[in-house]
């Protein structure tokens, strides 16, 4: 199952204006793990995520997904394996109807129409949004948009799911649904978020990013319970942990 492994080696990236956003990031995420990427604003989370499907190319170092090193030539194949859910669903939903939006990826993959329809319908059902198929995406609620955005990615049957702030702008019920959904996936999941309570419930491992480098990593509870570490990097211990037995959430 090595095709679900995500490996980043000494990744460095500087924006054209000279800002060094990533300074030698390295990690390896094994198959099926859910990993959180936490860090203060401007720590480099979004920049790092954008490297995982070749939206940005490293200045130095490399990214490998399932053993394939990401280059301009392999970008198309890697994008099929890495499903990216963007921070703002409005950026991701651009077709006239929900169904066409979800079908966009499989259609571009050149699948036959029956298979495209089957996959799009299945992905919508998977996120519980099958009843919205003929609605225009911009008329949905934030929670529905998020779910549909996830469906657009699921329809491509990715091995790895990468999400940028999946719980932002969601109401408590929408967030609860999202957490249930994220927990139910078997994909390798990489989630960048400030929602540390969500991290406790969904992710088994945490990387703490600060100033473009990984400053701490480890099992979720160990890292998030380290108050000194959290505070030092602009974070805090999630409230939920104060009420839990230190060996794990219920």
């Amino acid at each position, binding site marked *: 199952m090595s095709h679900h492994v995500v490996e980043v080696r000494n990744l460095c990236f500087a924006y054209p204006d000279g800002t060094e956003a990533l300074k030698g990031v390295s990690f390896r995420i094994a198959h099926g793990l859910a990993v959180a990427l936490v860090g203060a604003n401007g720590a480099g989370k979004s920049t790092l995520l*954008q490297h995982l*499907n070749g*939206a940005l190319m490293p200045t130095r170092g490399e990214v490998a997904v399932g053993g394939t090193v990401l280059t301009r030539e392999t970008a*198309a194949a890697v*994008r*099929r394996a890495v*499903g*990216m859910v*963007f921070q*703002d669903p409005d*950026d*991701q939903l*651009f*077709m*006239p*109807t929900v169904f*066409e939006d979800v*079908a*966009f*990826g499989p*259609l*571009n*993959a050149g699948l036959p*129409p029956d298979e*495209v*329809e089957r996959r799009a319908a299945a992905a919508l059902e998977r996120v519980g949004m099958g009843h919205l198929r*003929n609605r*225009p995406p*911009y*008329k949905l609620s934030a929670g529905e948009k998020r779910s549909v955005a996830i469906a*657009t*990615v699921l329809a*491509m049957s990715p091995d790895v799911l990468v999400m940028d702030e999946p719980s932002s702008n969601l109401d408590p019920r929408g967030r609860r649904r999202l957490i249930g959904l994220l927990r139910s996936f078997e994909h390798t999941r990489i989630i960048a978020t400030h929602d540390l309570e969500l991290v406790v419930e969904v992710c088994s491992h945490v990387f703490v990013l600060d100033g473009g480098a990984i400053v701490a990593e480890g099992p979720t509870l160990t890292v998030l319970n380290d108050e000194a570490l959290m505070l030092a990097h602009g974070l805090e211990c999630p409230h939920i942990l104060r009420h839990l037995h230190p060996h794990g959430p219920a």
Partner: protein
Amino acid sequence: MGLGGWMEVGRMDELGQMDSPVHRVHAQAKTVTTGLFIISVMSFSRYEVSALTPFFLYPLMLMSLGRIPPGYLFRKVLVAAPFAVAVGLFNPFFDQQPAVAIGTLAVSGGWLSFASILLRFALTVSAALALVACTGMHRLCAGLERMGLPRILAVQLLFLYRYLFVVGAEGSRMVRGVELRAALPRALRFRVYGSLVGNLLLRSMARADRIYRAMQARGFDGAIRVLRPARLRWADLAFVCGWAAFFAAARFWNLAVLFGGLLMKGAS
């Protein structure tokens, strides 16, 4: 941006999604017919007015069979109207030769050609808008591409349309931001608009870039693909041929005058 604004800009897409006899006509058939329509309308002499009127049948047919609210389309035509007015504005001043007489009133060639320009503008723009409204931009561009329009142009057209919404949404969000803080006297606000426009450009570009990345992330490679493209049926051919025949007839005979003459003969 508020929902109200989105509803207005997204309305075209919704109309394009509906199902009606004209929505079911093949996109390419409608495009060809509308092309023929525009060519016929534009080929009249510059002073022609009455012979143009029968051509309104085509956009009216698209609107009524396609259940497109005329008020909505009319507002969209008005948005573009200043261009047509600007084009024809000076005709009445430069061309003052009397061309026709209505009763005792002599109408100069300039006014006639001005009226003709406005009429042609109303015809072509309403037909083009009605075409988009009863086809959907996505299907229309896919159809154009299959008809041999270079792919890069078809994609450009599609993006132009898509990003129009994006820029519109960003723009109205910014205007709201300005208005909320505009305790300044009105005159001062004009200075703000310069940086506002620059900011809008940058924001729209950033957003367009994110949308493009999202499309790329889902395998977009420049080809416009449509799920289950419609097949050309005999009815589509009949649609094209029928309208082409009507346009030809209306081009070579002044149907308005003919029809008027028939009515008069019947009355006498």
